[in-house]
């Protein structure tokens, strides 16, 4: 009994001493930042681990979320980031929580107010903006404890600020990587688009495949009035890693946010995605593709909150399950009382390619306004034998036909991307990950 209690309350290596040491390296940064970190550490130690009655952890292998064995201090980078197969060069590359490489963005744009920098840098130049947006949204999806850990131990991250009216044509890529045994990383990307601005940001997560890491990341996306914010999170952590990603999107009047999360890596990967539609005309598109294989677990929790009238959200999460993989999709659409004329959609499709895989779907709705259009759907099935037959009847061998249908399953999501080059790059990455 006592050992299990110890396990549950264990902070692993994230002790008060380790925290003090981490805080030491942030000396000189704004006081609100240090205070917030201190408050976060207190919160991390006081909040309980998810329990068996915790609905937001239903079906999750909670026992897998143990912090024991990971290191609070950063080991030096042992590998440099390889070619990641995405168009363009990454603007910022972080290895084990520190910036290792940066490629400056077009100077003409920075002169007009574009900022692509590290969080540490931004704390000096844009302290107030950061204060208002960094981890500012409530953690409503179950990981408040780990969000507090993230805030307490975060060392650095990416800060992207797109000024009013600026439209960026090429995507900004950020690489977050972990290397060395038992490293814990806390990647963070914060993106703000001011009025009518436009940007595409790609987060690429990667780690060496020889050892386990704890990857506890978060992002804050803020789409100001009339802006357009596209986000791609390409999660390609090692298949040994314990991963948690907490994403938050705030969408303002007539703004449009699109986020696509690709889940390829992780031994146990949990992804939380919160979308808040805060003003009329806001639109949030939430997309995800997961390739689950081996004995791995992918746990995705989403929340679409409609807080203003005439808002729209559209969610499409697709999972392909192989071997003994498990997936959990738990989504909720919340329509507040005043959010009349809401148009919300939520769809979870599971493609089962193995007899030992397990798919869990919990698509939920909480509607408190009557003049709305809200639908959701969840399906779980294998490749449609009739579609397979159709292709075979046209002389396509069964294996090839099967492959085509699986790739077709992904295409429905990838087709939502406007950037063709990115679409092609992601397609190649997915296909190379799929046997």
């Amino acid at each position, binding site marked *: 009994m006592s050992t299990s209690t110890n396990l549950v309350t264990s902070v692993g290596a994230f002790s008060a001493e380790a925290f003090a040491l981490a805080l030491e390296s942030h000396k000189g940064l704004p006081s609100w930042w240090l205070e917030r970190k201190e408050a976060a550490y207190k919160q991390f130690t006081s909040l309980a681990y998810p329990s068996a009655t915790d609905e937001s952890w239903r079906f999750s292998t909670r026992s897998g979320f143990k912090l024991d064995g990971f290191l609070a201090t950063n080991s030096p980078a042992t590998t440099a980031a390889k070619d990641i197969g995405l168009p363009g060069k990454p603007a910022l590359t972080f290895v084990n929580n520190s910036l290792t490489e940066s490629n400056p963005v077009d100077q003409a744009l920075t002169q007009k107010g574009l900022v692509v920098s590290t969080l540490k840098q931004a704390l000096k130049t844009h302290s107030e903006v950061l204060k208002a947006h960094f981890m500012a949204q409530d953690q409503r999806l179950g990981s408040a404890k780990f969000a507090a850990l993230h805030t307490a131990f975060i060392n650095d991250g990416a800060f992207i600020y797109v000024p009013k009216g600026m439209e960026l044509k090429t995507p900004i890529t950020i690489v977050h990587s972990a290397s060395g045994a038992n490293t814990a990383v806390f990647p963070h990307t914060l993106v703000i688009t001011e009025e009518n601005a436009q940007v595409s940001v790609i987060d690429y997560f990667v780690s060496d495949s020889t050892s386990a890491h704890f990857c506890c990341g978060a992002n804050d996306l803020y789409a100001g009035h009339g802006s357009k914010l596209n986000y791609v999170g390409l999660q390609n952590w090692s298949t040994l890693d314990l991963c948690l990603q907490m994403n938050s999107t705030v969408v303002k009047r007539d703004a449009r946010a699109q986020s696509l999360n690709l889940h390829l890596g992780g031994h146990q990967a949990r992804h939380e995605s919160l979308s808040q539609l805060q003003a009329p005309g806001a639109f949030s598109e939430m997309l995800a593709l997961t390739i689950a294989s081996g004995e791995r677990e992918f746990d995705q929790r989403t929340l679409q909150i409609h807080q203003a009238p005439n808002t729209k959200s559209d969610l499409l999460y697709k999972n392909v399950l192989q071997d003994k993989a498990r997936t959990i999709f738990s989504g909720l659409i919340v329509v507040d009382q005043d959010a009349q004329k809401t148009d919300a959609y939520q769809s979870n499709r599971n493609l089962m390619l193995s007899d030992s895989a397990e798919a869990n779907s919990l698509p939920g709705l909480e*509607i408190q306004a009557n003049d*709305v259009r809200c639908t959701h759907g969840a399906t*779980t099935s294998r490749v449609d034998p009739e579609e397979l037959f159709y292709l075979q009847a046209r002389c396509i061998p069964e294996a090839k036909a099967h492959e085509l249908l699986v790739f077709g399953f992904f295409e429905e999501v990838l087709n939502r991307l406007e950037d063709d080059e990115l679409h092609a790059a992601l397609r190649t990455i997915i296909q190379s990950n799929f046997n």
Partner: protein
Amino acid sequence: MADTTLTSEPVQSDNPVTGIDQSAGNFSYKVDYEFDAGTGLSEKTVEYISAAKKEDPWIREFRLKALKVFESKPMPTHWATKDLEAIDFSKIRYYLSSGQKPKRTWDEVPDDIKRTFERLGIPEQERKFLAGVEAQFDSEAAYSNVKEAVSKQGVIFMNSGEALKEHPEIFKKWFGKVIPTGDNKFSALNSAVFSGGSFIYVPKGVKVSHPLQAYFRINAENFGQFERTLIIADEGSEVTYMEGCTAPKFSTSTLHSAVVELVALKGAKIQYITVQNWAANVFNLVTKRGVAHEEAEIKWIDCNIGSRLTMKYPGVILKGRKARGEVISIALANDGQHQDTGAKMVHAADETTSNIIAKSISVGHGRSTYRGMVHMPKHLKGCKNNTECDALLINTNSRTDTYPSITVRGAENKVQHEASVSKVSEEQIFYMRQRGLTEAQAMSLSVNGFINDLARQFPMEYSVELKRLIDLEMEGSVG
């Protein structure tokens, strides 16, 4: 025991649920109770009930064990509504009996009880025609009549208390097997204090020609009803059971917590129909589940209109190959009501199929919730589930929730779930108003249209009653 006489004049006091017209539907009579276990729940209460019913020791043990389970289980408020905390278990009467032996013919039923049924609107003709009436008046069956044709077929249809004494060999074999005591807090409560309910056994190959019916109601303030129903359909048999309830409106919360177990053996078919119209102060927390063996079929038709809070998720465990389960659910939540209903389908054999169709209507501040579970555990082949939930919201402050949970293992199964939320089409209302209908009439027609395809599956008299109830509920929801 305390007073054996209860004043059951409608008490005008503060109602926790605002906006409810207390004068409407006050079916309440002064009744003399011969046995009364008093309020509150303890081992004494349970022993009193067991003694009053002159039960065998094993039943007494079963009850006492269940009481412990009930006490050890927490309220499931981590997922269910906090409203459950409003139940004060110490203020509830757990057992009342008018002290009569179940009657065989209508003539033997005491006049005052007949009067109650009359007010409930059971038509004279229907009373005579009823295949068998298990009219539960408070805890004990006041009237029980199995139509001759049915008993000739070898069908056993009686009060469960009687059946425990007369047919222990059948009863004991299945009792508490589909829904074990510890299934949930309220099934444990029921196992501790159950009284009344029906027991039906349909022998091999018998197709019961008439639907079996039971009417019951809660009549005493602060009095909960804990009936226990067990239906066993032997190989190749078929039976339809109907349950409808109305209750008088009282101002303090009443608790109703039934356990219904169905067993459909190979190739058998059971259809269980419920129209629930408890008063708006009743907590209706019911556990209903059936086991369908090979090629058997269990269909729950469930309609919830009344009660303050209903939590009911009829389930089917599809245990045999090619078994089939179905839940048809209609819920109407008006001001101050929360209809938390749904379905559970556990696939446990190859080629099993299940279908869930749920429609809910929320009026005023009403809240309706769909909670569903579909489970396909091991490496099964050819299992299929289809779930459709549609919610209709009438007023701007109405609320609806959907919380399904679907688990599928293996590539050979197929599951689809769809849900939608909508409001009454303004164009439809406009069209009908143009043709001379009032707004309320148009609304009522539209709502009836929304559930029409499900209502048609009810027996005639029930669908008529349902339509009438919806008309009644829609009154005053417009404007």
